[in-house]
């Protein structure tokens, strides 16, 4: 790629779009070059591999070749040259294969820039819609499917499904703020925490149950959304990001240190479990088992929790889809597209921003109180910045503003990484995947973004139709704050 095409970043939308197309076409190797002969291809790939190996060798020498450990009388330095050399070799081999078979592979006629159409007519039953319906049915039937197919892993997988759904719900909540309204929020976990702590404190101090506290937790989180949203309204882009991050950290530090109220680092214990019309999932009197005559099994509680989070997530989705077609949702999207134009149309952007913050926060609060009731225990540990980052990553990887994208990204990022744990053959190789979980998570974030910068699902469907529904390509859709 020439310096000119790769050196441009702040270009107008149109040029940027063209640039992206060019970049797609040019990824790996400049187009228009004749296919290299096999010899030069091999030599060039070897050269690439040698370069990569050299860089990896220098980068990792202090991390693979040496290791410092606490020992008697200070730090002890151990040498691990074989480890270092084997990673350098892996880098060499990996880069060679990639270069030889991908980057320097004979050109498959990259004849000019392929023009992707930015507008596609959507069919009545689009793939997305069918996919959504299939997923919904699968989600509804999941406990039964698991029960029949994998009874041995039933509980673990159900727990994982609950975890994924929690992230789906959080992703959908944040999608309102980031995807629709275009306000970059790096402190979303604060509202998750507010929801969890509201429920836990209400339950402990006033002996209230889950179903009473749930709306209150959402309400409190929404209030906090407004309180935190108010001062940051005037800020744009990265300033907004950093201030929301700061707010997230402030709330966590306060939770950590206000020991009398929040239990400090020890957190809050004994948070009540949700009940089904007053029936508890346990053995004995007043329980679900007694009332229905179904014999008690611990899995029932998991199934119940699963359906609660599924219902909450679906509610979030339903309300979001509904709001998109209402003036408020359209104003959110208009705000993302152009704030000044919004103001010129008489839209009070303060209210629009606050409503986005509050709505997103409310769903975060719901998810938080579900988290509290599921765990039975909460502490500030669960509400670190990394949670905000994961949720934001899910939204962006899924494709900003896309509801289905959030689901796919959650399943891939949370489910995929979690399933690594179970790859038993890796243990046999002396490789413990759990240790590398976050490492792989980080790598996956980079890889997916480089591969698809606009996220997995990157088209927008219009909220109002005159005659024909057409999908709008992400290249036309603005990304909000930052201009």
């Amino acid at each position, binding site marked *: 790629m020439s310096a000119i095409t790769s050196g441009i970043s702040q270009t107008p939308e149109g040029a940027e779009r063209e640039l992206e197309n060019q970049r797609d076409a040019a990824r790996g190797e400049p187009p228009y070059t004749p296919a290299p002969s096999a010899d030069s291809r091999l030599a060039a790939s070897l050269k690439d591999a040698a370069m990569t190996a050299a860089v990896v060798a220098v980068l990792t020498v202090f991390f693979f070749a040496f290791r410092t450990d606490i020992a008697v009388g200070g730090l002890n330095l151990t040498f691990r040259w074989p480890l270092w050399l084997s990673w350098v070799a892996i880098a060499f081999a990996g880069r060679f294969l990639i270069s030889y078979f991908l980057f320097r592979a004979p050109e498959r006629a990259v004849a000019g820039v392929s023009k992707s159409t930015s507008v596609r007519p959507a069919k009545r039953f689009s793939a997305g819609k069918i996919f959504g319906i299939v997923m919904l049915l699968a989600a509804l039937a999941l406990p039964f499917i698991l029960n029949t197919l994998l009874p041995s892993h039933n509980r673990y997988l159900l727990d994982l499904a609950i975890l994924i759904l929690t992230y789906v719900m959080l992703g959908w909540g944040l999608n309102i703020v980031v995807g629709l309204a275009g306000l970059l929020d790096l402190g979303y976990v604060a509202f998750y925490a507010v929801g969890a702590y509201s429920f836990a404190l209400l339950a402990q101090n006033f002996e209230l149950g889950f179903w009473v506290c749930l709306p209150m937790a959402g309400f409190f989180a929404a209030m906090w959304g407004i309180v935190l949203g108010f001062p940051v309204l005037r800020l744009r882009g990265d300033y907004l990001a950093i201030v929301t991050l700061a707010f997230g950290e402030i709330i966590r530090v306060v939770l950590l240190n206000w020991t009398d109220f929040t239990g400090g680092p020890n957190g809050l214990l004994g948070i009540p479990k949700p009940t089904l019309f007053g029936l508890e999932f346990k053995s004995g009197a007043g329980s679900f088992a007694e009332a229905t005559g179904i014999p008690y099994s611990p899995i029932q509680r998991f199934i119940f929790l699963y359906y609660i989070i599924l219902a909450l997530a679906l509610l979030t989705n339903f309300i979001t889809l509904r709001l998109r077609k209402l003036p408020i949702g359209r104003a959110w999207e208009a705000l993302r*597209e152009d704030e000044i134009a919004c103001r010129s149309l008489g839209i009070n952007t303060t209210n629009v921003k606050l409503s986005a913050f509050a709505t997103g926060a409310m769903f975060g609060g719901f998810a938080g109180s579900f988290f509290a009731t599921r765990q039975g225990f909460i502490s500030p540990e669960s509400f670190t910045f990394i949670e905000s980052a994961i949720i934001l990553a899910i939204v962006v990887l899924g494709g900003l503003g896309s509801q289905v994208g959030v689901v796919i990204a959650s399943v891939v990022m949370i489910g995929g990484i979690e399933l690594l744990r179970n790859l038993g053959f890796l243990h046999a190789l002396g490789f413990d995947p759990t240790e590398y979980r976050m490492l792989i998570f980080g790598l996956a974030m980079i890889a997916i973004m480089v591969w698809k910068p606009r996220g997995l699902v990157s088209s927008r469907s219009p909220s109002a139709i005159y005659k024909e529904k057409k999908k709008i390509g992400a290249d036309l859709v*603005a990304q909000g704050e930052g201009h």
Partner: protein
Amino acid sequence: MSATTSAWMLDPVLKVEHLTMRFGGLTAIDNLSFEVGRGHITALIGPNGAGKTTVFNCVTGFYKPTEGRISLRRGRGIDDAAVEELTKSGQQFGNVANGSVYLLERMPDFKITEVAGVARTFQNIRLFGGMTVLENLLVAQHNRLMRASGFTFAGLLGLPGYRRAAEAAKDNAITWLKHTNLLDRADDPAADLPYGAQRRLEIARAMCTGPALLCLDEPAAGLNPRESAELNTLLRYIRDEHDVSVLLIEHDMGVVMEISDHIIVLDYGKKISDGTAAEVRNDPKVIAAYLGVDDEEVDAVEEDLAAGLPHATSPSTTTQAQESRS
């Protein structure tokens, strides 16, 4: 400038008095006063950098003027005394004898559109590019729909009142799409439209807010002659059928001279001429400002205009010259 009372002074919809805008040490607008007549198309012209867009930004609330009063009068025959009274009362707007008065310099930008009924377009088009043409027009009807949706709650439940309002909004949008020849592009993203269509869409969107005064910032920029002619028709239609007064900034003298009822010429933040097309066209100060100053004409021109004037565009006294320019 005619000393006699002109048509626009009788019943102005907008009256700008002693408007001054300073940015740091730079005075962009200097003690500017003018009227926009009710039901008129008024053009604000002047060389580049004369302060036209700054006037617009003051009128529409994007800038807070350093000094001056900008009063918008809705209703017939509101006298200056009523405006004076409202000014003293310290309120932003209020009802007076025959209508209501809005002191725009006191109001935030979105309120000016929402309450006072001033809509605007932008020099560099500002559409919601990733939203469809129809959606753009629905966003413009936000406030009305917001009330109809019971601030979202009734809308969320899908109550019939909201559904009726939503239908009405869509009908209104479709009406405007018809008038701007955009109906067949209704479901396309706004960013996909050609330039001229984007300009028309921006006007349609501004009209969907239901304004009393429409402010257009260079609506004919980048249009070809056919599109310019269509624009003229559209603006006349807006003025005549919708009872909306139009204030526009324009460099295309063909458009300006043809449709304007009243022209105000700015240079260096000051008004140098104010009158009908014919009056302005023959005003030596205007010619000087646009063309620079000839040796013989020096005496006829004010001293402060004499030094190094820009002469970017060149309307001359003859119509042929105007045509050849564009």
